[in-house]
């Protein structure tokens, strides 16, 4: 473009080309500044990010460099960026001329001159005058907009540079060494107290030494082992504290009369002298039991930890208060409620069992006692539990047993059957019932409740009836009870017999209902007959009518003969698999053929109805009008009627018709 100016208008060369070059130079300068600031912004932000990353990665390559060198790098990069951007800027001459024309307002003379058009002298003069103020119309750099981000980036870099140095983190190995040194010191303190056996102290020292070696080897994951060892040492300290306290008390109580075998150096308190004897002295047992009764806070905590967690705090406190220093139990301190006492007894039993299963805990609780002494302590605990037992009720007075007792007996029967291996033969329903009866042994359960637990499934009912028959048979003195039928022993009580009779009767009633609703197959019916016959027989025998036993047995035998031998329903005897009707079977047979009751037929009409032929009178619907304006109309009005107005046009149309009305 400038070249054309040179060729076309030599007179205009200087002012026009000079103005264009100045305009272009200003644009290039602006581009350089933009690149400079942009590069500075990017590099400063990058440098700040690198410095932060170095702090995170604990390296100090950049941080070790002098501060001015970082700024020098940023400045050099910014200058380079500015130079590159300025050199790559390409703005067409026509664009430059057009912008200059817009700014100078030469009425197009500059445009014409730049295109090589020969201008008249007066126009040249006019254009020259306009070009004289080129400097005032050159573009200005928008410093305010350009410098905002670089300033922020510079501030960020300064702040990052001035951040205080990171605190020197101690190496992990050093921390481990400190921790093991502390552990070693703790073990030394424990050894100085001489309250812990030497072999245990030696073991602790070996554990600490092992930790030291592992820490020196750089092994990871030692902190958990260190914590565990520290806890163990703390426990040893607590145990030593407890031993110190109780031995002092024991020495005070028995110094006059006992412990002649103890050594003179005072080690008898912690059991060193007792290790030689096989049988612990009464004083030692009393001492151990005294631990239970006169425990200090820490030992009491240990004891209560052994008790079941579901035992209330009040119960635990009752145990502690009831135990006397001599190992006996103060009955006055025990709760009056039998259930609570039983719970206490169970809790102490459980604690004793737990201690018996865990020798470490036992040794921890009864430190200083020999194994025999510890065993006797456990026995004492058992006796302690026995003292907690509530007084048992009198059952030999011939009075009518209560419903819970009946249930308990039923549960006992189930237990005996389970011992004999016969419980698994019982059907599921009876097993569940037995289990529920056992669970509810301490609760009241009457016959109605027992009957309400009967299953609804017919097959279950039949199987249950068969099992009841077996159960009743066993109650007669045969297996599985194995006792003498005449001598009592496992002989069921009369209430139990009543309950069995009620159960048999309920079974028969329910099976009768079920049979009426869902008649089973012949085989099943025969099996059910067997079971019912047996159940009825037992019911008759146990119904308090000894004289009718023979008749009942005969009836039962007849039932057994008519239905064959007692067996599972639906079976054909040995060699045939049992066909059991389960819920799935009934579910699959839900669409089985079923005979519906016949509808009642009315009387046939007695009069003849004559047949007639009549002319049909169809009803013709009214024809809908299809004039203009109706949907489907063929006239032009139809199209108008169906015309859909866009929402933005509706207001205009509404306004139009509103004006028409006016």
């Amino acid at each position, binding site marked *: 473009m400038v070249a054309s100016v040179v060729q*076309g208008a030599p007179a205009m060369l200087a002012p026009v080309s000079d103005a264009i070059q100045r305009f272009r130079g*200003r*644009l290039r300068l*602006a*581009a350089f*500044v*933009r690149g400079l600031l942009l590069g500075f912004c990017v590099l400063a932000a990058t440098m700040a990010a690198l410095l932060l990353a170095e702090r995170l990665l604990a390296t100090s390559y950049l941080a070790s460099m002098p501060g001015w060198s970082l700024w020098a790098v940023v400045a050099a990069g910014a200058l380079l960026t500015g130079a590159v951007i300025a050199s790559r*800027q390409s*703005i*067409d001459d*026509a*664009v430059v*001329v*057009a*912008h200059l*024309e*817009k700014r100078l307002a030469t*009425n*197009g*003379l500059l*445009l*014409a001159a730049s*295109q*090589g*058009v*020969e*201008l*008249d*002298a*007066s*126009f040249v003069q006019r254009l020259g005058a306009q070009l004289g103020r080129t400097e005032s119309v050159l*573009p*200005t*750099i*928008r410093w305010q*907009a*350009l410098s905002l981000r670089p300033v922020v980036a510079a501030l960020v870099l300064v702040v990052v540079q001035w951040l205080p140095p990171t605190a020197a983190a101690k190496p992990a190995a050093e921390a481990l060494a400190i921790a093991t040194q502390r552990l070693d010191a703790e073990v030394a303190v424990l050894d100085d107290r001489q309250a812990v056996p030497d072999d245990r102290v030696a073991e602790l020292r070996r554990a600490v030494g092992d930790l030291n070696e592992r820490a020196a080897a750089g092994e990871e994951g030692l902190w958990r082992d260190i914590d565990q060892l520290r806890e163990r040492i703390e426990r040893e300290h607590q145990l030593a504290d407890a031993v110190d306290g109780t031995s002092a008390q024991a020495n005070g109580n028995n110094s006059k009369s006992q412990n002649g075998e103890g050594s003179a150096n005072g080690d008898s308190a912690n059991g060193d002298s007792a290790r030689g004897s096989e049988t612990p002295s009464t004083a030692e047992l009393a001492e151990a039991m005294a631990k239970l009764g006169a425990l200090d806070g820490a030992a009491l905590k240990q004891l209560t930890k052994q008790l079941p967690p579901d035992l209330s705090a009040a119960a635990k406190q009752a145990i502690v208060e009831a135990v006397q220093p001599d190992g006996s139990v103060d009955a006055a301190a025990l709760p009056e409620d039998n259930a609570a006492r039983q719970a206490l007894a169970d809790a102490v039993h459980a604690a004793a069992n737990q201690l018996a299963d865990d020798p470490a805990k036992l040794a921890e609780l009864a430190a200083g006692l020999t194994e025999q002494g510890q065993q006797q302590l456990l026995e004492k605990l058992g006796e302690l539990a026995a003292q907690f037992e509530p007084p048992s009720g009198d059952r030999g007075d011939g009075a009518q047993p209560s419903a819970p007792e009946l249930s308990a007996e039923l549960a006992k029967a189930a237990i005996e059957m389970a011992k004999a291996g016969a419980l698994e033969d019982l059907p599921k329903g009876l097993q569940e019932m037995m289990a529920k009866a056992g669970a509810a042994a301490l609760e009241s359960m009457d016959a109605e409740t027992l009957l309400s637990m009967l299953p609804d499934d017919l097959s279950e009912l039949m199987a249950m009836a068969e099992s009841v028959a077996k159960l009743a048979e066993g109650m007669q003195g045969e297996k599985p009870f194995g006792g003498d039928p005449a001598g009592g022993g496992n002989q069921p009580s009369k209430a139990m017999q009543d309950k069995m009779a009620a159960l048999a009767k309920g079974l028969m009633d329910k099976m009768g209902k079920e049979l009426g609703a869902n008649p089973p197959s012949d085989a099943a019916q025969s099996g059910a007959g067997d079971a019912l016959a047996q159940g009825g027989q037992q019911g008759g025998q146990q119904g308090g009518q000894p004289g009718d036993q023979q008749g009942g047995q005969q009836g039962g035998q007849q039932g057994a003969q008519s239905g064959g031998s007692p067996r599972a329903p639906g079976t054909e005897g040995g060699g045939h698999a049992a066909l059991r009707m389960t819920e799935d079977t009934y579910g699959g047979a839900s669409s089985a053929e079923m005979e519906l009751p016949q509808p009642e037929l009315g009387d046939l009409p007695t009069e003849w109805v004559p047949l007639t032929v009549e002319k049909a009178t169809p009803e013709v619907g009214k024809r809908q009008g299809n004039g203009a304006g109706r949907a489907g109309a063929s006239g032009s009005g139809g199209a108008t009627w169906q015309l859909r107005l*866009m929402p*933005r*046009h509706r*207001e*205009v149309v509404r306004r139009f018709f509103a004006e028409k009305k006016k």
Partner: protein
Amino acid sequence: MTTMLTTEQVARGQQLLSAVRDGANQVLLGQNDLVELCLIALCARGHLLLEGQPGLGKTELVKAFAKLTNLEFRRLQFTPDLLPSDITGGPILQERDGERQLVFRPGPLFANLVLADEINRSSPKTQSALLEAMQERSVTVLGETHSLPKPFFVLATQNPIELEGTYPLPEAQLDRFLFKVEVPGLDADTMARILTSRRRGEPPTIEKALQEGELQELFDLVDAVFLPDAIANYIARLVAATHPARSSSSKTSSHISRDTSTNASGAQLGVDQAVRYGASPRAAIAIGEAARAAALLQSRPNVDFQDVARVAIPALAHRLVLQHSAVVGGTTARAVVEQLLQDIPAVHKPLPEEVR
């Protein structure tokens, strides 16, 4: 090397134009802009469509121009029953040399300046008879083409309020008019001047402003006005931006706002929503020619951006076909062009953002 008009040439052109303008201003009081636009259209050798209410002096202005420019003038009153042959002429049976033959008898269209009064009252058939005349400057009857006298101008008028019984001009017909100028109403002072200076509305007697050959000289001067490339680029981008398809995709429209007009409810409509069809290349040519005449009228040897802005609205507005929704919403083509003039930058590439 291209040579621009000299100062003397520009002054000569200004002199001729001033004579015509002053004469027209004597006839039509208070309508300086209208007179200048008509003069620009004549200098650009384009046809002119005047739209305005009755009684504003449209017909009188055309007659005045005919008188001032010393051109042969014919007036055609368009009516619904006017036939094409009534304006183009037709063959008549004549006896020549003892033989009877059909001889073409030129119609009223064969004149330098034709006033098509109330052009929208004639049928489309008759309106279409003007198509060839306006574009080709010729008339074809019975397969024989007859050239119209040069220069040939059609100055048409139409009444925008009596639309019943009228036939809106087809787009092809509208496109052939260089300008469509809306004749504005008069203010009270102007009407007072008319009342005091005119009796019975009779215009003053004027003499012709241009002698024989001076009109052609004026045309030559207009042709010599220089149109810089930057201005031509601006005109092209302006016309291209009127097309809805290009307004959103073309490079020239990348700087324009899509909100080019405001409808009656105040909602902004873009070119895509407001315009159905944009202006044709004939519009760009018309703007360029008219801008030349406008530059000479302003005593400039070359076209400037402001000359384009002055003639863009009368040259573009009647060439845009708006969407029905835009029309119903109150958007006018004039508003669209005004918005485009604001949105289209004079320089197609803006300065970098780091400078202002």
